[in-house]
C-alpha cells in the first residue's frame, strides 16, 4: 500500500506541476494584448493630455510642428486600403478555394498548395518592390490614362492590389482547409436528395463552412490592416483623405514606420506615433470583437 502510494504521488505531483505550467502559459498569452495595449496607452498619455480625442479622430490636419495632431486621414488611409484589398482578394479566394477543393483534378490542387507555400514565404519587402516595378507604372501609364485620369501610380489602388496579393496565400489556404473539412457524407446526403453539385455547395457546403469562412476572411483583413512595408512602398504616403482609388494615401502602419526615430525633437511627436499605434491596435481589437460576435451568433444557431 505504501509502495503504491509512493508510486502514485510523484505522478500526481508532476501532473499538478504540468497543469500549473500550462495555466501559466495560457495566462501569459491572454495577458499579452493587455500588456501591449497598456504600454501604448501609457506612451500616448502626454498627447492625450494636450489634445482631445475627438479632434484627433476627426481632424485631418497633421502638422506636429504647429501642434496639430489630426489622424483622420491616416485612419481613412488604413481603412480604405484594407477594404480595397479585401474586395479584390476575398471573392477570388473564395471561388478559387471552392474550385480547388470541389472540382479541380488532384494534381492542380497539389500544385496550388505548393504555390501557396511559395507566396506565403516571400518577404513583404519583395512584394513592395514588385509593386513599385510593376503595379505603379501599370496604373500610371496604362490604367489611369485609359480611364481619362492621371495618377503617379503611388496610390490607394496600388496598395490595395499589393495587399490583396499578399493576403491570398493566407486566405486561400485557410478556405481550402475549411472546405476540405466538410464531411463527404454531408455532400452525399444533399446529392442523394437530388441536389446538383453546385446546389450542394451553395446550400450545404458554404453553410457548414460559414464560421470557417468568416474566420479565414477576417484573418485576411487583419493581415492587411497590419501590413506595413509593402504598402508603404507603393501607397504614396500623403497625409490627405483619399478621394479616389488613384489618390495617394497614408495608412497608420506606414506613418509609424516612416517617422519613428526621426523628428523626435518635435514636442509630442513620439507620443503621437504611439497614439497612432494605439489607434491601429484598437481598430484591430474592435474588428476582431465584431467577427467573434458573429461567429458566436452563428454557432448559437
Amino acid at each position, binding site marked *: 500500500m505504501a509502495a503504491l502510494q509512493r508510486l502514485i504521488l510523484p505522478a500526481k505531483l508532476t501532473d499538478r506541476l504540468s497543469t500549473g505550467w500550462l495555466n501559466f502559459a495560457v495566462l501569459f498569452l491572454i495577458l499579452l494584448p493587455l500588456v501591449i495595449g497598456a504600454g501604448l496607452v501609457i506612451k500616448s498619455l502626454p498627447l492625450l493630455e494636450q489634445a482631445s480625442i475627438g479632434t484627433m479622430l476627426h481632424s485631418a490636419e497633421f502638422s506636429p510642428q504647429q501642434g496639430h495632431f489630426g489622424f483622420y486621414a491616416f485612419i481613412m488611409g488604413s481603412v480604405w486600403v484594407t477594404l480595397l484589398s479585401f474586395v479584390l482578394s476575398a471573392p477570388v479566394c473564395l471561388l478559387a478555394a471552392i474550385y480547388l477543393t470541389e472540382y479541380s483534378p488532384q494534381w492542380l490542387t497539389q500544385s496550388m498548395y505548393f504555390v501557396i507555400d511559395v507566396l506565403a514565404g516571400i518577404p513583404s519587402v519583395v512584394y513592395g518592390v514588385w509593386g513599385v516595378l510593376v503595379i505603379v507604372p501599370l496604373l500610371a501609364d496604362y490604367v489611369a490614362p485609359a480611364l481619362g485620369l492621371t495618377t503617379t501610380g503611388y496610390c490607394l489602388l496600388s496598395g490595395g492590389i499589393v495587399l490583396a496579393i499578399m493576403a491570398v496565400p493566407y486566405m486561400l489556404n485557410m478556405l481550402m482547409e475549411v472546405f476540405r473539412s466538410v464531411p463527404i457524407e454531408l455532400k452525399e446526403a*444533399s446529392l442523394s436528395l437530388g441536389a446538383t453539385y453546385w446546389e450542394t455547395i451553395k446550400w450545404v457546403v458554404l453553410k457548414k463552412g460559414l464560421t470557417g469562412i468568416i474566420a479565414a476572411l477576417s484573418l485576411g483583413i487583419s493581415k492587411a490592416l497590419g501590413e506595413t512595408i509593402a504598402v508603404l512602398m507603393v501607397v504614396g504616403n500623403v497625409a490627405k483623405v483619399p478621394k479616389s482609388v488613384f489618390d495617394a494615401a497614408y495608412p497608420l502602419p506606414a506613418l509609424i514606420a516612416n517617422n519613428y526615430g526621426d523628428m523626435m525633437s518635435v514636442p509630442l511627436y513620439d507620443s503621437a506615433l504611439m497614439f497612432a499605434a494605439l489607434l491601429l491596435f484598437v481598430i484591430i481589437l474592435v474588428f476582431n470583437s465584431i467577427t467573434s460576435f458573429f461567429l458566436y451568433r452563428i454557432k448559437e444557431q
Partner: protein
Amino acid sequence: MSNSSTIIDQVQQVNGGEAGATSGAFPNTSVQTSDSPILQIRDFNVQAGDTRILKDIHLDIPKGKITVLLGPSGCGKTTLLKCLNRLSDLHPSLKVKGQILIDGEDIFHPTQDLTTIRQKMGLLSQRPFPLPMSIYKNIAYGLKIKGIRDKKVVKEKVEKHLRDVGLWEEVKDRLHGPAARLSIGQQQRLCLARGLAVGPEIILADEPTSALDPISSRKIEEEFLRLKEDYTLIVVTHILRQAKRLADHIVFMYFGEIIEQGTPDEIFNHPKSDILKQYLQSGH
C-alpha cells in the same frame, strides 16, 4: 454495355449454380421471380485501379420487399449501394462497367438525369448527417429542390414525414432549432424523413443503426417494416439478428461477389456454401 439482356434476364433466377437448388428445396420462396423486380443489376463490375471491388454482380431487387445485404467488412456492400444512386460518381477512381436498370432504364446511361435517379432512392447512411440548418429546413430541402415552394404544402409535408418516422411529437416545438441539437437516434430518423420527403421508390440504408442505441435501433427497424408497404428497401447490416427480423430476401456477398442469396430461412438455416456457413458461425 448493350441493352439487349434486359428482358430476358427478368425472370431468370440469380447466380447460376445455386439457383436450381434454391427453388428445389423451397418452392414458394423465390421472392424475386414472383413479381417484376424494381432494380435489375446486370454484369455489374466496379474496379479501382487493379482491384476489382465488385465482380459480375447479377441481382434482382424485389419490389416492396426488404432486401438485406450481408457480408464481411470490405466485401463491397457500401460500394454497391453507392452505385445504385450514382454517388460513385464522386469517386473518379472507381471504374464502373455493366448495367443497373430501374424501371427498365439504365442508371449509368450517359444521358440519364442524375437528379431523377437520385430522387428515386432515399439514402440513409451509417451515421446521421443532418444538413446544417433547422429541423424544418432539413425536410423542406428536398422539396425545394423538387421545386415545391408553396409554404402551405411544404408545411404539411414536413409534418407528415416527421409523423411518418415518429419524430413529430418530439420536435414539434423546436422545428426551427438546429437539427444538430437532436440526439443521434432522432437525427437518424430525421434523415429518414428527409429522404422520404423527396418521394423515393427505394430506400438505401447502409448500416443505419450501427451508431444508435438499442431503442433507437428498434424504432428504425419498426419504421422499415412499416415502410415496405410503400417502398422497396435495401439494407446493409452486420447484425445477423437484425437481418432476420427485417429481411424478406438476403444477399450474401464475399470479396465483391454474390455467393448466395435467398430467404432468411434459406440463408440462416440452410446455408449451402462453406463461406456463408463460416460467416454465420463467426458472427452471432
